[in-house]
């Protein structure tokens, strides 16, 4: 690994694993981010993406329920979240805005809009074998 592009790969198989990866996400971000707010925002968005991946994912033999890859590349932190199962409805949803009718979120559905508003870019692709790949990126004020 070189300093300009550092990676961390984590596998999740249950909601309990979210608790464990939380610290890994925070530690990874803390290494590069210059403010607590940046770390908080990244933690929230990445955990939200992993949470959704575990919730809606389907267990495939010899595969993790969800795979998270964190990459620091120049001035950005990129999270790649993969799972298998139902396709996401990512592109159809707008970013969260305080001008929206909040009642639409009373039973959920805020995950993707929230991630979109917290991150600089959200890309989704449907791969073969029903694999979903969500790539979320945020530019940071690198402290190094």
């Amino acid at each position, binding site marked *: 690994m070189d300093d300009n592009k550092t990676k961390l790969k984590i596998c999740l198989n249950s909601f309990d694993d979210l608790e464990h990866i939380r610290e890994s996400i925070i530690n990874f971000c803390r290494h590069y981010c210059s403010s607590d707010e940046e770390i908080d925002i990244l933690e929230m968005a990445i955990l*939200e993406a992993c949470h959704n991946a575990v919730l809606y994912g389907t267990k495939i033999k010899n595969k993790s329920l969800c795979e998270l890859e964190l990459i620091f590349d120049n001035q950005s932190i990129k999270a790649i979240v993969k799972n298998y199962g139902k396709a996401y409805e990512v592109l159809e949803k707008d970013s*969260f805005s*305080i001008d929206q009718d*909040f009642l639409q*979120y009373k039973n*959920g559905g*805020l995950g993707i809009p929230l991630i979109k508003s*917290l991150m600089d870019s959200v890309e989704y692709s449907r791969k073969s074998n029903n694999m979903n790949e969500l790539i979320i990126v945020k530019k940071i004020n690198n402290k190094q």
Partner: protein
Amino acid sequence: MRIKESEKDGVVVLTLSGKMMLDAKSAGLHDYVKDLVKQGKTKVVMDMGKITWFGSTGLGALLASYTSLKDNDGDLKVARATRKIRSVFMFTQIIKVLENYDTVDEAVAAIK
């Protein structure tokens, strides 16, 4: 997530604790608030100092609760939100509609 209800100076104080994420209780927060509205209790402070995990389901329930209270001439204030919650409120501009106070007493005074 657990919800503990108390009352201070005519304002309902809901002390929330635990993980405010995807579980029936987090989504049920809005139903809880709607029941308060039916009882004519429309001024609510949510003490979030003991929330250990905050996800989109909890945030959705919080925002829906705010709307239901506002629609009934009431209001919702937040007290003791953790740094992480405050960061999300700031970044998403939720802070413009949902004010956070350092103490429950300050939130109650602001909503009275």
